[in-house]
C-alpha cells in the first residue's frame, strides 16, 4: 500500500505538516518495505485551488492513503472521488504517523475537517 504523508521536508524523519494543500512536501511511503519517495508540493503558493492541485499530484503518484493534519472541502471531494482513503489528526514524525496508522490509532475521515483557505496563514487577505 502506498501512503502519502503531508510533510515539512522530504524524509521519513520530517514532521507531518498539518496542512494538506499547502504543505511543503509529500512523502510517499510503501507500507510493506518503508521505501519512500519525496516530492515538493507545487501548490504551496497557488492563489486558489491548492487542495485540488495537491490532490492531483497525490493521485498521479498512485497513493492509496493520505495521512495529514486537516483536509479542506475541495481536496476532500477530489481525493474521495479518486478512491483515496483520508486519514487525519497526524502529528510528529512521518515514521511515527505511519506506525500509528498501521496500529489503527489514526482515524479515517468521511468529511472535510476544515473550511477552504485553511492553510493560507493568518492575515493574508486573500479571501476575495
Amino acid at each position, binding site marked *: 500500500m502506498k501512503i502519502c504523508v503531508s510533510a515539512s521536508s522530504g524524509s521519513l524523519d520530517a514532521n507531518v505538516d498539518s496542512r494538506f494543500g499547502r504543505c511543503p512536501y509529500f512523502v510517499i511511503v510503501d507500507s510493506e518495505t518503508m521505501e519512500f519517495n519525496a516530492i515538493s508540493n507545487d501548490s504551496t503558493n497557488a*492563489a486558489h485551488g491548492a487542495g485540488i*492541485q495537491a490532490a*492531483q499530484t497525490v493521485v498521479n503518484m498512485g497513493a492509496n492513503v493520505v495521512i495529514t493534519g486537516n483536509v479542506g472541502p475541495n481536496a476532500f471531494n477530489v481525493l474521495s*472521488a479518486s478512491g483515496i482513503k483520508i486519514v487525519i489528526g497526524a502529528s510528529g514524525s512521518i515514521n511515527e504517523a505511519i506506525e500509528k496508522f498501521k496500529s489503527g490509532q489514526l482515524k479515517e475521515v468521511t468529511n472535510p475537517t476544515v473550511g477552504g483557505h485553511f492553510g493560507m496563514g493568518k492575515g493574508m487577505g486573500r479571501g476575495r
Partner: protein
Amino acid sequence: MIITVASGKGGTGKTTVAVNMALSLDNVQLLDCDVEEPNSHILLQPKIDETEPVYTKFPVISEELCVYCGKCSKFCAYNALFVAPKTVMVFPELCHSCGGCTLVCPKNAITEKERQIGVIKKGEANGVEIIYGELNVGEAMAVPLIKAVKNQMKSDKNVVIDAPPGTACSLVASVHKTDYCILVTEPTPFGLHDLKITVQVLRNLGVPMGVVINRAGLGDNKVYEYCEKENIPLLLEIPFDKKIAELYSRGVPFVAEMTEWKKKFLKMRDKIKS
C-alpha cells in the same frame, strides 16, 4: 476622456469623488466597477431602464469521450479541473474561462457552458448615464462582470469609472486602458499605506495619476510629503467638513447643494486634461 477613481483603501471617498465629478461634467457616463458593493447608484438615485444578466464560461466534460489523460488539469493554471482515475471533476468557481482546456484535450471531450455571475444595470439621473454591475453573493469571479460593465463604454462620452478598493485583479481590470487615475486618499497612516501600494500598481500599468485628499484637515502631513517626494500631483482637497459629512450621511451628493464645488471638479478635470 476616461478617468478612473481608485484608492486602495476602502472608505476613502471614491464614490463621493466619482459621483460628484460626474454631476459636475457634461455628457457623462458613470461606470461603477465596484461590482461587489456598488454604491454610486445610491448617491445618484437613477431610474433603471435595463437589467442584463452576465455569464461566464466553464468546461463540461463528456465522460464518453474522455480518456482521463489529465492534459486539461495539467494545463489549467487555476486548478479548476481534477482528473481522477475514472472521473473528471470541474470547479466552475475557480475557472477563469480561458478555454485552454478545450484546446489541449486530444479527444475533443470538453465543451463550454455558461453560468450567470451577476447582472449589469443601466439607468440615468440628472443627466448622468450610470451603468453598474452586481456580482452574485458568493461569486469569486468579479473580473468578467467588470469587463461587461466597461463594454458599455461609449467613446463620445466623458467616462468616469468608480473602481473597487484593493489592488488586485478587480482594480487592474477597472483601471486597464483608462487615460488617467484619480487616487482618493485621506491624510491618515492607513490612507498613506494603501496609497503607496496603489501607486506601485498604477506605475506598473503605466497609467498617469493624481491624488485627491478627502477629509483634509484630519490626521497628519505624511500624505502631502509622500506626494511631493514622488512627484504625484495633488488635484483637489475635500475638507473634513460637517456639511459634506451630513449630506453624505443622507445619501446626497454634496455638489447638489454646495454647487460652488462643481467648478472645483471642472477645474480638476481641466488640470487632468492638461
